[in-house]
Every structure is written in structure tokens, then in C-alpha cells.
């Protein structure tokens, strides 16, 4: 078990390094840097000025060295510029170069400075992440019980009318991406055209104070898309368990149907959905970006959009680090949890 986790951790770190390097590479491409120079300094820079601007700020080193500096395993650059000013990576915005530390990267907790929000990336990311955390938590609280109940009810009698109805419902929700259900929800529940003004069409006020009125629609929009998928997986797992030999034995012994479902089938049927729910996190991240844009909730997802639109390299890197870590951690948890939950694997 220990070796298994260790190996998984190793692969995880390698994946994280590769992914962040890809993001680093794509955000630091030539045209992006030119755009950065022009937004940071002056829009009317000549090509030569752009080149010196970049030289003075260490952007002309090889991409691997700069990735190492960003990561914090290589010493940050100290460059005496053509204009006579000494600039160092670790002494931004007029701090003294002499006292600056040698290493300053992600590993030292220096995530850089967001050019869009004019704040430390670490601050932006942690603020935004806590807002999104509430959203994710509410989504999980709605999505997991709802989908498990639907899946179990549908899977316990395969082919029954209940199964048909609930399966149709889950197919319908998997066919409704967030931007479609969000638009439908907003038009039905918030506008004067339909007239049911039950909820708020914007979740902006939920950033300070979460209420039923302003938070229901965003949560339902994300949850709905996941419900169908998890319910279908639960149903598949439930029908498989219900045809197993030991269930038939229990029925022949005369155990009531309700007891069979609750005491015999349920425990084994819930192993597979656990993995699925954990692997649903990358999806939630996606849904979060769409829903936060649609409902103007300034969380992690909308930070991603703003950073990408504003070409905020440091913030984009920070966001990708966080999301990659979230995705990989949930994968790891789902692997380990599967081993723990499944007695056949656990005991052997």
C-alpha cells in the first residue's frame, strides 16, 4: 500500500511539473510577451524598445531557466539593464536588490504579482478559492445525495417504469450543459417576461452573504449536469449488484426486498459511485468557470477568465497550479479510497 501511494505521488508530481511547464510555455510565447510589454510599459513602444524591455526583465533567458526560476529551484535573475537600473526577479517594484533573496518561486511561496488585479497572486487565488469553495460545497451537498438516490431507485428494479422515468431524467440532465440550463433557469425564474421572480439572476450579492435567493440557481446549474452522470453510474453499479449471486440467495431465503436493497446491495453498489464522484472534480471546475461567468460570481473560475483575457501570466500559472493540484489530488483520493472501500482488494 505504501509503495502504491508513493508511486502514485511520484507520477502526480511528474504530471504537475509537465502541466505547469506546458502552461508556462504557452503563456510565455513571443506574442504574449510582446503584449505584456505593451500593456505594462507603453502601447506605443517600438519593436526595439520591446526587446530591451524584455532583456532588462529577464525575459530573454531560455524558457527552461525561467521555468526553474518560477519554480524556485534556480536562483532568480539579477540583471543590470541597458538603462543602468539593476533589476532582480526577487526584488520587484523598487525593493532593494541587495537584500533580496536568491530564490523566489512557487516553492518559496512567491507566486508573483497579478497584473490584472494589482495584487499578490497568492492573495487573489486564496480569496477567490474560498468563494468558489462555498459554491463547490453547496453543489456537492445537492448533487451527491440527489444522484445517489436517483441511481439507486432506478437501479434496484431494472427495466421498471421508475427506472425508465429516472433514466430519462438523467439522460436529460447529462444533455444539458451548464450554459444551457443556466440560461433556461435565469429566464424562467428571474425575468419579468415569465414572471416568476423567485431567485436572483446574479450571484454577486452571494459573495458577501449567501442566501437561498441568490445562490440556488448557480448551485442547481452546476449540480444538474453532474447529477445525471453520477446517477447513471450508480444505476449501472446497482443493477450489477442486484443480479449478483448473493442477492439471489437472500431473496430465496425470503429476505424482504427493502432489506435486500438497504442491507445487502447498497454497500457494494456505492463503491463505484465514490470513484465517479471524486473524478467529477475536474468537471466541477469547468462548470464553475461557466457558472461564475454567467452569474457574475467573482470566484476562482471568473479569475481564470479575467486572467486569460488580460494575459496575466503569473495569475494564469497560479490558477493552473491550483487546478492541477485539485484534479490530481482527487484522482489520488479516488484510487486510494477505491482500494480501502473494496474488501476484495483491501484484504489481498
Amino acid at each position: 500500500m505504501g509503495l502504491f501511494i508513493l508511486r502514485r505521488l511520484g507520477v502526480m508530481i511528474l504530471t504537475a511539473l509537465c502541466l505547469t511547464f506546458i502552461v508556462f510555455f504557452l503563456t510565455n510565447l513571443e506574442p504574449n510577451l510582446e503584449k505584456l510589454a505593451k500593456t505594462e510599459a507603453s502601447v506605443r513602444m517600438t519593436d526595439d524598445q520591446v526587446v530591451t524591455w524584455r532583456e532588462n526583465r529577464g525575459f530573454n533567458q531560455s524558457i527552461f531557466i525561467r521555468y526553474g526560476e518560477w519554480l524556485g529551484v534556480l536562483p532568480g535573475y539579477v540583471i543590470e539593464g541597458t538603462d543602468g537600473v539593476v533589476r532582480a526577479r526577487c526584488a520587484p517594484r523598487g525593493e532593494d536588490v541587495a537584500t533580496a533573496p536568491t530564490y523566489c518561486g512557487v516553492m518559496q511561496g512567491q507566486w508573483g504579482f497579478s497584473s490584472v488585479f494589482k495584487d499578490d497572486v497568492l492573495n487573489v487565488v486564496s480569496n477567490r478559492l474560498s468563494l468558489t469553495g462555498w459554491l463547490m460545497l453547496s453543489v456537492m451537498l445537492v448533487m451527491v445525495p440527489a444522484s445517489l438516490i436517483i441511481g439507486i431507485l432506478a437501479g434496484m428494479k431494472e427495466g421498471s417504469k421508475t427506472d425508465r422515468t429516472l433514466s430519462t431524467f438523467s439522460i436529460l440532465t447529462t444533455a444539458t450543459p451548464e450554459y444551457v440550463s443556466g440560461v433556461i433557469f435565469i429566464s424562467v425564474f428571474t425575468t419579468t417576461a415569465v414572471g416568476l421572480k423567485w431567485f436572483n439572476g446574479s450571484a454577486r450579492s452571494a459573495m458577501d452573504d449567501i442566501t437561498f435567493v441568490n445562490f440556488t440557481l448557480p448551485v442547481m446549474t452546476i449540480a444538474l449536469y453532474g447529477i445525471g452522470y453520477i446517477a447513471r453510474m450508480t444505476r449501472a453499479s446497482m443493477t450489477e449488484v442486484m443480479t449478483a449471486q448473493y442477492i439471489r440467495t437472500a431473496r430465496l431465503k425470503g429476505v424482504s426486498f427493502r432489506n435486500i436493497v438497504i442491507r445487502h446491495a447498497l454497500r457494494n453498489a456505492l463503491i463505484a459511485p465514490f470513484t465517479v464522484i471524486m473524478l467529477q472534480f475536474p468537471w466541477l471546475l469547468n462548470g464553475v468557470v461557466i457558472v461564475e461567468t454567467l452569474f457574475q460570481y467573482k470566484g476562482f473560475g471568473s479569475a481564470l477568465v479575467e486572467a486569460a483575457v488580460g494575459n496575466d501570466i503569473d495569475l494564469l500559472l497560479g490558477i493552473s497550479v491550483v487546478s492541477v493540484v485539485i484534479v490530481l489530488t482527487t484522482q489520488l483520493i479516488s484510487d486510494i479510497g477505491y482500494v480501502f472501500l473494496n474488501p476484495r482488494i483491501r484484504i489481498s
Partner: protein
Amino acid sequence: MDPLSWTGSLGTFLNPALLVLAAALILSALAQMVTSLFAAEQTLRSGPDGKLLARGGALGFFERSTGWLFFGLVLVVLGYIVGGVLMPYGKAGIIGLMAKQFLPVWIALLLTYALSIRFKRRLGLYGKLFDSTVGMIGFGIVMFWVYTALLAGGFGMISTHGALEQISGMKNAKPGSALSNEGLFPHYLLGGDNLARDVFSRMVLGSSVVIAIAPVATLFAFMVGITLGVPAGYYGGKLDTFLSFLANLILAFPVILLFYLLVTPEIRDTGIPSYMAAFLFAFPIVFFVVLLNSRYHTQPRKRNLRVGVVFAVLFWLYLSLLSQQGTPFNFLPGFPVDLFDIDAGLLTVFVSVVFVNSPTVFRIVRGLTMDIKTRDYVAAAQTRGEGPWYIMLWEILPNARGPLIVDFCLRIGYTTILLGTLGFFGLGLSPESADWGSTINEGRKLMQIYIHPALPPALALLSLVLGLNLLADGLREESLKD
């Protein structure tokens, strides 16, 4: 011309009928679900004449009533469509006029269904689809949009106005508003959008963008996934470890971040999408050449001919697909051999959708291959001394086709959703494009005041993806029956 109401004179008796039936259906279905939880179990019983008896009691009653109510509801909906087609212009309201505009699609659908059901026993898996209700409904919805896309995009039918045609005074006009201009189609059926364009026509024409990109992109993703997944599953070992690592790498990326990184104009300037296109589009060539070579390598003359022709045609298509002004690949400047040019934005969208989809296909194909390679017929082929590629592509792949076809349908739906996501964030395709994602994005900005520009494309996208999911379900059900 007067503005139209939703249902016109048809509505006077069909609307109340629709409401009553729908309410009764929902109640009956709920009652049926609740009673089924408590009803005693009942086995099938037959009467004295040998016929099966219907289920008695409350559950039996609700089951029958749900069935009849559903049938009634379908009749009412058909009434709207048939009434709309038959009644003179404007008498059957907006719904009727839309039904009339879609008349070519209805005819095409009727023909398809009549022919397919007539010959369904000779049509293999496709024919079997018509044994399953779910499959038939799904196929119907999908074909509805396919025919709409073909007839609207190819022949200029169905849509009432142009996708970019702006008519003054129709900005944010309500559904059914009349035009003041003479000579044009006299109404905006689903109203006008923020730029005074017809929402109905944009929805109809948007279908051709989606139907043109989604299946082809999915096909390419399948080519990449199959070409890499089959050997990974068959050989295993280092190759498998390496390819699986790459696939997981792409899958761990949040899709939207990837889109934002790949589909910006700055990245397009560096030519990265073109290089990726060069890489990804090479897979079909590799696939078909290896496929034919492994089959005919014992008959060199036949092999040379077939492989040569296929390679030449595909390579020509490949070159003309890539070669374009202003990209790193400009092999055939102004030369008539360059068959077609693809808009740079479209190419980027296409490439990123293929790129995001192929790792999942890879994983599915790899899993299927690992399962199938333990079968006896694979061992028999190995004993016969067949080459590994022959076994992979002619023994394993055909036997994996069932799950792959099902997944293909699901994945087209998923690709449609991805395209919508790209449009929703205004990435890639031009903002004027009529595709559903972009139209939803435009419409949502004024959502609080005008809901009619955003809803039609949203519902269209929903119905297409739903149709594809139902179709996949029907196919899965029927292919399991073998």
C-alpha cells in the same frame, strides 16, 4: 402585417388540451412512481384464454393512464405541426409558421422512417435501431437537425432571413413581430436579437455550423484515439505507460484553461495550432495505410495499388487542409491543387476540440483492446502467424465496434457541448458566427430584459445533445441483444 400570436387560431382548443394533458401526465407519472414503491410484487399471469392479464390495482391503473396520456400529448403536438403546415399563412401563429418552414425536414424525416422501417431487417444494426422506442426518438431528433443543417446550409431552405441580415426597427423585437419592409418574409418568427437579426434564422443556420464541425471533429478524435489506443492496449509495457501518461496529462487539464491557452489570436500567430493540425490530421493517413497494408501485404500488386491510391488521395486532402496563406504551411500558394481553405479560427477550434477528445477515446480503445486480446480468435490468429497490425486492426478492432459506435454518438454530443462552450466564451469562431454557443453568449447579456434571443439556440443545443444521447442508448440496448 399584424404581429403573430404563439399559436393563432389553433390555440383556442389545442392549448387547453395541451395544458390539461400535460398536467394529468405529470400527476399520473408521479402517482405511478410512488405506488410502484409500495405495490406488492406481481408476476405475469395469464387468463383462461392464455392471454397475459394486465396488472391490476392502483399501479396498473396509473401505468395504463400514463401510457394513454402520453399518447394523447403526442397527438396534440402532431396537431400543432399538421395544423400549422395545412392552415394558410399566419392563421396558426408562430408555432404553425415554424412547422410550415420546417416542412422539407418533416418530409425528409417521414421518408427516412418509412424506408428504414420497411427494410429494417436487411439493414443490420441500423435497422435494429427501429426496434427500440428510445433509439427511434433519438434518431428522429438527430436527423431533424441533420436535415435542417443540410437543407438550410446547403440549399437555403427553412431559414426566413439571412444570418447576418439586419433590418431596422427590429432590434430586440418580440417573437412574431411584423416587418415593415415589403418583399421579405413578413415576420421575425422568434423575434430579433440585439443587432436586429432574425433569431429563428440564426438558430436554423447555426445548426449547419455545429453539424459540420462536431461529427468530423469526433471522427478525427477517434482516428487519433484508435491509432494510438489499439497498439497501447495490445503491446502494453513501456509504450502503454508512456501513452497513458500523456493521455492522463491532457485529461488533468481543465478544458476551459486549455481552450483559453490555445484559442487566443496570439497563439494563432505563433502557428502552434497549425503544427498541432499537421500532427493530428496525419493520423487518418497512418491509420488507413497501415489498415490496408496489413491486410494485403501478402499480395504485393493489390497492396501497392490500393495503398498507393488511398495514400495519394488522403495526402492530397491533408496538404490542402493544411496549406493556407499566413500559416507556417504554405506549400501550394495560389496553386489550383489546393482544394479548399479553412478559416484560421475554425481550424483552431477544430484542432483544440480534437485534442481534448482524443485522450478519452484512447482510454476507451485501450481498455477494449486489453479485454479483447485475451479472446480465442486472437490466439488463433497469432498461431496462424498473422502480423501484429493485422490482428489489431482486422481481428480486434471490428470486434470492438459495438461500444465504439455507441461512444461515437455520445462523443458527438459532448463535442457539441464543447463547441458551445467555446462559443459561450467567445473563443475561436468569429463573433458574428451563427453557431449556437456564440448566439447564447450574445443573448445572455440582455437576459434580464429580453429572453427570446438566448433561449432558442439553448433549446436547440439541448435537443441535439439529448437526441444523440438517446440514440446512443438505443444503440447500446440493441447491440447488447445480439
